C-alpha cells in the first residue's frame, strides 16, 4: 500500500496553522522529476490513470507549462495551465469536488514556453481494483 500525505496550512496575520490529510491506496501512477526543455511543444510523458479510481493527485512544475492529456490538442482529454511552483492538488474529499481531469489519462503532453527547463512531478494514488 502507498500513503499520500497532503499538507495544507496558512501562515500570516498572526496565524500559523498546518494540517495533514492522509490517503492510503494500492495503486500509484508517477512522473518523478521529468525535465522538459523550454521550446518543447507536446513533449510526451508516460502516465496512466483511471480518474474514477483516483483518490489523491499531485501535479507540480517549477516553470509555467501546459499539460494536455491523451492528445496534443487534448481531444478526449483535459488541459491544465500549470503555474510555476503552484502545484495542482486534489483529493477525493476536496471541498472543490470537481477533479480537473475528467477523462481517463493514457499519456501526458507538456508544452513549455517558459524560457527555462521545467521539471515535472506528478503522483496519483488510486484504488487498484483486484478482479
Amino acid at each position, binding site marked *: 500500500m502507498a500513503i499520500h500525505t497532503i499538507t495544507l496550512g496558512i501562515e500570516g496575520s498572526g496565524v500559523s496553522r498546518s494540517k495533514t490529510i492522509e490517503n492510503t491506496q494500492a495503486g500509484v501512477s508517477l512522473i518523478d522529476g521529468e525535465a522538459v526543455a523550454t521550446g*518543447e*511543444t507536446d513533449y510526451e510523458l508516460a502516465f496512466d490513470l483511471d480518474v474514477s479510481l483516483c483518490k489523491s493527485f499531485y501535479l507540480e512544475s517549477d516553470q509555467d*507549462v501546459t499539460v494536455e492529456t491523451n492528445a496534443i490538442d487534448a481531444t478526449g482529454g483535459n488541459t491544465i*495551465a500549470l*503555474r510555476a511552483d503552484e502545484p495542482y492538488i486534489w483529493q477525493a474529499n476536496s471541498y472543490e469536488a470537481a477533479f480537473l481531469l475528467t477523462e481517463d489519462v493514457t499519456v501526458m503532453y507538456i*508544452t513549455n*514556453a517558459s*524560457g527555462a527547463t521545467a521539471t515535472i512531478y506528478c503522483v496519483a494514488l488510486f484504488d487498484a481494483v483486484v478482479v
Partner: protein
Amino acid sequence: MIRITKNVLRQLNDAAGKLDADTGDVFLGFIGRLEMSDGLYHGDVIYADVGEDPPKDTVSIKTILSPAKSVKPAKSANVTKEI
C-alpha cells in the same frame, strides 16, 4: 505582449536560433504561458544581436505571426442584382 495559438508557438519553436530576415537579429524563441481564458499563449518573442558568426538559416517571424489572410467568400450563384 502577443497572443498566439499553439500552432504558431510550434512554428516559433522551430524557428528558434535562425536569423530573422525582417529584423536582422537572431530569433531566440517565444517566452510565455497558456491563458485558459482564451486558449492562447500570451508572451513575447525574444531576439539577440547577430554575433560574428550569424546563423545560416533565415526565417520571417513577421510572416509566422501574421494572421491568416481572410478568404473572400465565394460569389453566390443566385445573386439578385437590382437594376
